[in-house]
């Protein structure tokens, strides 16, 4: 069992649950076993995966972002309005958003504020701005993003290509780069990172900025799929992104995260909803059933983790 390192084990459970769910969906609805089928099954998971990566970055430094859903909604509104009519202004606003995220990281670090409180406050700011921008649902997606999200690459559908791409890029950023080691260090042991000569405030600011960047991508992709925006379009992303990270093997504290797992977690959550819909479970039970799937996967992980620590103790 030497190949079964802690990192791989962390990935094994979410990957297995995805495979089992996918097999069940294929069995229930053979139509999904096609190019278009897979694309329809997973294309709405792409923005969720991006938001999950953003949330994972924040969780890497032991923080939590409760404004993820409203921020993605705001970005969606900007994309469907400014980015379409006046690309330069739109891009500037989005860059400004990323700067605000970096600023949040600095404030949270310097004033030693709980991130939950700051981001909860920011969620009202984002949602207010979104309503100001689009008081009634509307706007038009820029042609290029619409083209990108509906493109049909050969052999493998766009949704799968995009998911793999997101997972690989995030993996290299967080698990393989020097920057990744520092931010995971901030989550694991902030003091030792500081003693080693790294600027923790800079690391936190960069993490938040990067999270902001992924969240901006999420909003843009979402509009590419929906064709237009709504100030409340992505409110569910806050909880979905947190659930995705945890489902994918991440933890709330300690800088223990898994980018590939996070993407798998996002896909699993999307698939779980389709699975329940194909089973024709009444809607009143669906939230509960979705929760049950989450609990089963998490329980499995806990059992495996325990076995692992027992083996280590030997």
């Amino acid at each position: 069992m030497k190949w079964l390192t802690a990192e791989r084990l962390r990935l094994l459970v979410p990957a297995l649950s995805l495979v089992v769910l996918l097999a069940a969906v294929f069995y229930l609805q053979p139509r999904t076993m096609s190019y278009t089928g897979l694309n329809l099954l997973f294309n709405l998971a792409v923005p969720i995966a991006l938001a999950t990566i953003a949330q994972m970055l924040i969780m890497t430094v032991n923080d939590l972002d409760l404004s993820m859903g409203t921020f993605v909604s705001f970005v969606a509104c900007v994309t469907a309005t400014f980015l379409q009519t006046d690309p330069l202004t739109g891009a500037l606003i989005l860059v400004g958003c990323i700067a605000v995220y970096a600023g949040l990281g600095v404030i949270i670090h310097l004033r030693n504020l709980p991130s939950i409180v700051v981001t909860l406050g920011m969620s009202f700011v984002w949602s207010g701005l979104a309503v100001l921008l689009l008081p009634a649902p509307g706007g038009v997606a820029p042609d290029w993003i619409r083209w990108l999200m509906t493109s049909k690459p050969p052999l493998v559908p766009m949704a799968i290509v995009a998911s793999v791409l997101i997972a690989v890029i995030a993996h290299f950023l967080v698990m393989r780069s020097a920057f990744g080691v520092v931010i995971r260090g901030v989550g694991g042991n902030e003091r030792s990172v500081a003693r080693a000569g790294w600027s923790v405030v800079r690391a936190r600011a960069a993490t938040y900025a990067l999270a902001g960047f992924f969240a901006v991508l999420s909003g843009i992709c979402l509009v590419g799929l929906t064709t237009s925006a709504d100030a409340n379009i992505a409110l569910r992303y806050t909880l979905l992104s947190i659930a995705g990270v945890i489902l994918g093997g991440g933890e709330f504290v300690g800088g223990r995260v898994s980018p590939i797992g996070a993407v798998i977690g996002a896909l699993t959550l999307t698939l779980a909803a389709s699975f329940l819909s194909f089973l024709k479970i009444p809607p009143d039970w669906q939230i509960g059933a979705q929760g049950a799937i989450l609990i089963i996967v998490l329980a499995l992980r806990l059992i495996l983790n325990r076995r692992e620590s027992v083996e280590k103790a030997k």
Partner: protein
Amino acid sequence: MKKALVLSTLAVLLASSTALADTSGKRIALSNNYAGNSWRQAMLESWAKVTGPAAEQGIVAAADAFTTAENQATEQAAQIQNLILQGYDAIVLNAASPTALNGAVKEACDAGIVVVSFDGIVTEPCAYRIAVDFAAMGKAEVDYLKEALPEGGKLLEIRGLAGVFVDDEISKGIHEGVAENPQFEIVGSVHGDWAQDVAQKAVAGILPSLPSDIVGVVTQGGDGYGAAQAFAAAGRPTPLIIMGNRQDELAWWKEQKDASGYKTMSVSIAPGVSTLAFWVAQQILDGQKVPQDLVVPFLRIDQDNLEASLESTPAGGVANVEYSLEDAKKVIAEAM
């Protein structure tokens, strides 16, 4: 078994004067974003009541209802994509957002699926829309007042939930009507959020600042009973309050009518509009030419049909009517 089959085929043929059998293999799905109030519950009940027998008679193969667990556009978009994968021939849609589902609706159209949106309509051009002309509803209220109160007077307006499109539209219609009839003047406006308790509080709050000769209250539905209670609590004479088809409003109206001959009217959209959308979808699948935009008729209750409407409305519910294939054909013909 064979006999039963022949008989049922015969029954279908008899029941359908037009080429209904063409849709006997078609499956229609209802995609609904919310089920948390009496209007939506009645909507789902009407759907089951009409589509169940339709499926049994073989007019369509199936008509299943799906409701998203949470009222969110992204979730409903995923639901629509799942319905595409399940191979439905038509999707009848009450949308969480007029625009955020357009991508999923386009996917459905591209897959050759007929999409009919109603109540919560979508703007995607390939979808059919059964829209409510809310402005006309607001105007109908003023038209009634014009006849009931020929000498005119001061009006109080109760609006709905601020920032919602429906509220803006109904209010726009009311104000247009008042502008055309200068004998009326709106002297106050409050938000009742389409809920009796909120409306009662809001009206009680504004009453002291209003002149005592209010002759009428224009409303948006779900707020008439609350307004009446507020007037009674303030010890003021009850003006003519337009009602909104809720059972408590109709019951109060009946009480007043029996006691003092109180006169008013009640207007709203019947939750059974889901069944109208069902028949429209069936007609499109049947190959009939249907315009992309249709308008729902209002359900209006007047002095003479109050008793009948009240009797058929469950306590805590809203007056309802289920539409038939003939109704759908009439609506389609009117829009041509």
